């Protein structure tokens, strides 16, 4: 299941109501806003792109080391 921050917020607020945690609703709005920001960050990987759109990180996987050496053998 994947959700946009708006869809997530609606579902989470309904769940908070169901659990009697109405005080959680303003905090959920803060979290939804942060999630929206996080998803817009330029480093996020995008499997739909033919390019690596994610920010390259030392020690993280790149196109050259996606597979362990054993799997690169014919």
């Amino acid at each position, binding site marked *: 299941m994947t959700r946009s921050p708006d869809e997530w917020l609606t579902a989470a607020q309904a769940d908070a109501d169901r659990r009697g945690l109405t005080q959680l609703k303003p905090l959920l709005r803060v979290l939804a806003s942060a999630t929206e920001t996080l998803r817009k960050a330029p480093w996020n990987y995008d499997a739909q792109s033919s390019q690596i759109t994610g920010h390259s*990180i030392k020690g993280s996987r790149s196109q050259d080391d996606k597979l362990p050496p054993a799997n690169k053998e014919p």
Partner: protein
Amino acid sequence: MINWCEQPIYRLAQAIEKKVVSVREVIDSTLCRIAAHDRSLNVYTAVLADRARYEADKADQLIATGHYRGPLHGVPISIKDLIDVAGVPTTSASRASNPTAAERDATAVARLRTAGAIIIGKCNLHEFAFGTTGEDSCFGPTLHPLDKTRSPGGSSSGSAVSVATGMAFGSVGTDTGGSIRIPAAACGLVGLKPTFGEISCDGVTPLAPSLDHVGPLARCVEDARLLYETMRNTPPDPEKTALPTRRILGCPKPFFLEQLDREIRTSFEHSLTRLQSTGWIIRDTAVDHALYSPAVCLHLVLSEAAATHMRGLTTRADHYTDGVRLRLELGRYVMGEDYARAHHGRLVLGEAIDAALDSCDALVLPTLPIPAPQLATTTVNIGNQPELLRSVMLRLTQLFNATGHPAISLPCGLTTGGLPCGLQLIGRLNRTDHLLNVAEAIEVAINDRPRPTAQ
């Protein structure tokens, strides 16, 4: 007559070694301070008076027989009540904690004891270290020693006030988003968050294990270094303790200097001017993507804290204070894919900090964007813009928990109302020794502070 309770550890240690003062006298003076101020400031959750007196007499006997153990011999140290001390329950300032006594000392505490320190008591905190003010505690809030209508900062609130008021000579705190550096800045102390993992979290109640750090609060950098070197997992590497040679600091203005209280900005800029007048070079720099750091840190800490407290939330949710319970519950709503994005972000941000550090000894920025806040405040105005207090308090510190870089807060003057301001230095990963060298040199250059004392 010297009031030993207000002296730094290194000066007290000389006096103890030379028998100018006995350990028993030091402990009795410290207990007198506690008796005089603890009730009004709400600093300690447990005072270990009898045990401390017993250990003091033993410490004096050792000195009498020529067995001085080093600069922590007989020095009273307080411990945040999130950290195990054998024979005492670790309350975490919560009714939801396990009420049984800890069977053994946390590793950091054991190392201090081996070096001769005397544990004088356990300190109040923000419940489970999940807050920046110290207000949410089953013992009630710790109050600021200079203004009892204000918070001393948190979550290591009691630790900071114990050192600031002479109720301990140093303290051990924890820092998951700034919980050592924030109260250090608010109370005019030195607070060190070492590189991630340098001091063991064994015997420490976890909050967010990939962000949790243990570190000292002290009256000066030399004392912080002594406590850090005693508690750390590995001995100091002489190669890494070489003095700074470049005397260059990088000041990351974008994001970090954008939203500051006017007096904090004035104090910080005054400190930079003083540093420049003593030969330091201040270069403008930037940490790429820093504006994303609050979102990254929020997703990391909420998810991990919710996981850590899953059993407590399931079985005794009503035992938590309302504020902490709600934030823990909030973490249960973070989606796994967003935690993964945040984890990726912390790596990107770590590299950005490394790049900013490339051409300087350390980064320099304020510790807290505001002075110690009024109690019962949830929002503050910076530049006429209302913001959540918690977000403001964490803004300049939390990133370095996510990336693991060592960070230290030093006092850097007072507001016109007499409240302390803090200057923060960030060092390279695994180079905490070097950061301490830089901090020591900077402390000398900007040190014109009066010591906070209890009202």
